[in-house]
């Protein structure tokens, strides 16, 4: 596991925690929960930029390259999709949907790490 994974682990868990608490407190999605999910997206962008630089620098991906990029692109689609959905229905349940993003991103980052090394 590399630094990229640990960044996503930390950001993802914090985001999931914030969104879960907001959901349990019966709050609708607000700036805090949506920004926490945006932070997950930012962490994934960092992973993307870092990975592109590493590939250009000649570092090989141990597993299937297209599988790695597939995971990364799919993971990056999740936060915008969840935020879009949470805006369509502003209830506490949308916060649980947002909460799912952080955990999913961290599971996918773990898998991406396995493919890379």
């Amino acid at each position: 596991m590399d630094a990229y994974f640990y960044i996503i682990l930390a950001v993802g868990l914090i985001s999931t925690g914030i969104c879960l608490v907001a959901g349990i407190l019966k709050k609708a999605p607000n700036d805090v929960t949506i920004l926490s999910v945006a932070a997950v997206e930012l962490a994934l962008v960092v992973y993307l930029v870092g990975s592109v630089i590493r590939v250009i620098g000649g570092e090989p991906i141990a597993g299937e390259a297209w599988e790695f990029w597939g995971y990364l692109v799919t993971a990056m689609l999740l936060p915008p999709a969840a935020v879009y959905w949470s805006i369509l229905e502003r209830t506490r349940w949308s916060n649980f949907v947002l909460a799912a993003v952080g955990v999913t991103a961290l599971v996918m980052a773990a898998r991406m790490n396995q493919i890379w090394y």
Partner: protein
Amino acid sequence: MEEARNVKAPHSEATPDKARASAKDTRNTGPGRLLIAVYAVFAISATARAGYQILTKFSEAPLAYLLSAFAALVYLVATVSLAKPGRTWFKVSVTAVLVELVGVVVVGALSVFDPVQFPHETVWSLFGRGYAFIPLLLPILGLVWLYRRRPGKQRNAA
């Protein structure tokens, strides 16, 4: 929650978007949205995984990978049907979720007893252990949700 539910959904144009549908039906609002979101994640991951397995190493374990594809299809149908209003989609949902439950139990049991044919590489292997047992939990939650929001029961839906 209330009678805002529209069972027949006469306004279903070519493709009613999710915002429209959610305003008319209680099955795809509130907790239902969370359920749909989790199903959607599984539909995407199962489809991607099955596609990858079939394209790259189908001959290694054809039965397991065909099951992977079948599981992906079930998740797709469940996701779409849960998001759609109306009685017909309700029945589709119940069928998909029941098939999912039977699938995870049967494949889970087979993967324990016949690890040669089922090399632990489908979503449902070992009762979904590779996915934190969510595949086992999901159909149960799905059935509970569908039962509570079944057509004809909407007036006092909890």
